[in-house]
C-alpha cells in the first residue's frame, strides 16, 4: 500500500480554509428522485380525482364476488365483502395522505409557536420572567417528547375519541416537539446575530425586527423538515387507523384496510399486500424527495 493510497481512501476534500472538509454527500441520482416524484404525482391524482382510475364503488359490498384473487376485472382482487381492493386503495389515498398532511400542519404550527415563544422569551422579555417562560416551554417540549409518539397520540384519542380529525390533532401534537426544538434553537441563534443588533441600533421597532429578520431566518429549516415529516405522519395515521382509533370501517383508509385484511390473510393475502405496498411506496417517495430538497437547501446555504 503506497502512501498515496493511504491518503486517497477515503478521499479527503480540502476546504477553502485548508482544513479537510467532510466528504460531501453524493447528490442523489436524479432518477430515484424523479421516480419518487412521479409516484407522488400519481398519489396526488388518486386524492384529487379517484374516478379517473376506477369505476368501482369503494364502499358498496358485492358479496357474490367476495374474496376473488386478482384478475383482469379486479386488479388487486376483492375483499371479504366483495369490494374491489384497487378501488379502495385509490379512494383510500384521500384519507391516509390528507390526514397525514393535516397532522403535519398542526405539528408545524403548534411546534413553531412553542419554539418561537421559548426562543424569544430570553431576548425579548427582560429578566427572570423571560428565563422562566423559556424554561417552562422547554419543559413542555421535554414532557411531550418523553412519550413515544404513538402513545401520546393514544392519550389524546382517549380524550377525544376515535375519528379522522381527532387522530390528525393527536399526531400533530405528537409531532410538535420536533419543530419546537429546531425553531427554539434557531431563533436563539438569530436573535444574537449582528444583523439583528444592527437593525435594532438603526431604530427599527421590535415588531419590525421580529417580522423582517428573526422570523424569516428562524424558520428556514421548517419547510424541509415538514416535507420529510409528512411521510412519518402518514405512517402514524395508518398505524392509529390500523389500531381502530382513526376513521372507522367501511372507510377505505389504508390502515383500516390492513386491519380488516388481517383476519382473512390466510385466504386472501392480496387484501393486505396492496394497501401496505401503497403506504410504503408513498412514504419512501416522500422521504426521497424530502431529502433531495434538504440537500438542495443545504447547498444553497453553504
Amino acid at each position, binding site marked *: 500500500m503506497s502512501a498515496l493510497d493511504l491518503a486517497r481512501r477515503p478521499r479527503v476534500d480540502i476546504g477553502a480554509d485548508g482544513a479537510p472538509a467532510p466528504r460531501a454527500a453524493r447528490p442523489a441520482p436524479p432518477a430515484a428522485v424523479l421516480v419518487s416524484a412521479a409516484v407522488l404525482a400519481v398519489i396526488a391524482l388518486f386524492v384529487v380525482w379517484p374516478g379517473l382510475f376506477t369505476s368501482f364503488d369503494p364502499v358498496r359490498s358485492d358479496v357474490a364476488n367476495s374474496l376473488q384473487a386478482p384478475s383482469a376485472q379486479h386488479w388487486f382482487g376483492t375483499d371479504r365483502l366483495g369490494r374491489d381492493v384497487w378501488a379502495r386503495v385509490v379512494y383510500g389515498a384521500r384519507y391516509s395522505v390528507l390526514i397525514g398532511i393535516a397532522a403535519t400542519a398542526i405539528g408545524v404550527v403548534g411546534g413553531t409557536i412553542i419554539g418561537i415563544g421559548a426562543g424569544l422569551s430570553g431576548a425579548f422579555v427582560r429578566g427572570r420572567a423571560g428565563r422562566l417562560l423559556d424554561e417552562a416551554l422547554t*419543559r413542555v417540549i421535554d414532557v411531550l417528547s418523553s412519550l413515544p409518539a404513538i402513545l401520546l397520540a393514544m*392519550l389524546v384519542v*382517549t380524550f377525544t375519541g376515535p375519528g379522522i380529525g381527532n387522530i390528525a390533532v393527536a399526531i400533530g401534537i405528537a409531532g410538535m416537539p420536533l419543530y419546537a426544538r429546531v425553531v427554539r434553537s434557531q431563533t436563539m441563534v438569530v436573535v444574537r446575530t449582528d444583523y439583528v443588533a444592527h437593525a435594532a441600533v438603526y431604530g427599527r421597532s421590535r415588531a419590525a425586527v421580529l417580522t423582517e429578520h428573526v422570523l424569516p431566518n428562524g424558520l428556514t429549516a421548517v419547510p424541509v423538515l415538514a416535507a420529510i415529516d409528512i411521510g412519518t405522519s402518514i405512517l402514524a395515521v395508518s398505524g392509529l387507523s*390500523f389500531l381502530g382509533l382513526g376513521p372507522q370501517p367501511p372507510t377505505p383508509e389504508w390502515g383500516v384496510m*390492513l386491519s380488516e385484511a388481517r383476519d382473512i390473510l390466510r385466504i386472501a393475502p392480496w387484501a393486505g399486500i396492496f394497501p401496505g405496498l401503497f403506504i410504503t411506496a408513498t412514504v419512501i417517495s416522500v422521504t426521497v424527495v424530502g431529502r433531495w430538497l434538504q440537500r438542495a437547501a443545504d447547498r444553497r446555504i453553504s
Partner: protein
Amino acid sequence: MSAVAVDAPRRAGVHPILGVLARRVVSGIIVLWATATVAFWTLQLVPGSPVDILAGDMADAELREALAREWGLDLPAWQQYVDFLGRLVVGDLGQSYVQQQPVVSVLGDQLGSTFVLALAAGVLAVAIAVVLSTATVGRARVRRGVLSTLELVFVSVPVFWSGLLLLIVFSFQLGWFPAAGAGGVRSLVLPAVTLALPTAGLLSQVLRESMERTLTEPFIVTVRARGVRESLVVWRHALRHAALPGMTVLGSLAGGLLGGAVITETVFGRPGIGSISLQAVSNKDVPVVIGVVLLAAAVYVVVSTLLDLAYTLADPRLRGGAR
C-alpha cells in the same frame, strides 16, 4: 500549574459518576411529575364522567352516588390530584375502572411479554445495523446504493404491513412459526424481526454517517500507516467512534420500540402492554391510561440516565464536572 488548572473543576471526594447520577435522578423525577400532572389534568377533561364507566348502563342515581363516593370521585379535582400524587409516591397507580383491580397488577401481568419483545427487537436491530453499516462504509457505489435503499425501505415500511407479510410467508406458506400467541421462542421470532426493522434502518444510517466522518480524520491515516488491515480500521476504530452517536439514537428509539410494540402486538395477537393500552383507550379507563403513560415516561427517564452514565464512562472529557 496547568495540571492544577485542569484538575480544579473536579470536586474532591465526589466521584463524577455520582454527580451525573444525582442530577439525572432529580430531573427524572421532575419529568415524571410533569407527565403525571399533564396526564391527570388532560384526562380530567375527558367528556363523560368516570362514574358512567363504573356504573355501566344501570344509571340508578343512588348507585352512581355510592360509586362516586367509593372511588373518591365526588371530591374536588384538586383534592383528587393531591390524593393521586400521594398514592403515586408510594407506587400505587389506583384501580382500573373496567377490570376492577389495581393498575399496577394489570400492567405488571403484561409487562414481561412486552419487555421481552422490545429487548429482543432492540438487540436484533443493533446487530442488523452494525452489519449493514460496516459492510457499506467507504465501499463501492453499487453495494452502498443497494444497502442504503434497504435501510430506507426498513425505515419506511409500516410494522403492521411488514408483520403481515412475514405472517403470509413464514406462517401461512412455510409454516415455520405460529401466527399468533406468545408461547415460547418460536412465537417471538416474527414479532421481534418486525419490530426491529425500522430501528435497524435508522441506526444503520446514523452509524454509517458517523463512521464516514471518523474515517476522514487524521488519526485514521496514522492507523493505516501502521499497516492495520482495513477491516480492523473499520471495526476497531471507526465503529468505536460511531458508538456514541449510535447510543444517542438508540436511546431515543427505545421509546419508539415501546410504541411500535403496541402495533406489533396487535398484528401478532400477542398479549402485552399494547392490548392493555388499546382496551384502556377505547374504554376510557383513565387510571390504566395514566399508568401506561407513566410507564413510558419512566422508560424514557431510565434510558436517558443510563445513556448519560455510559457517555461519562466512554468519553473521559465529560468527567471533568465542569458543568
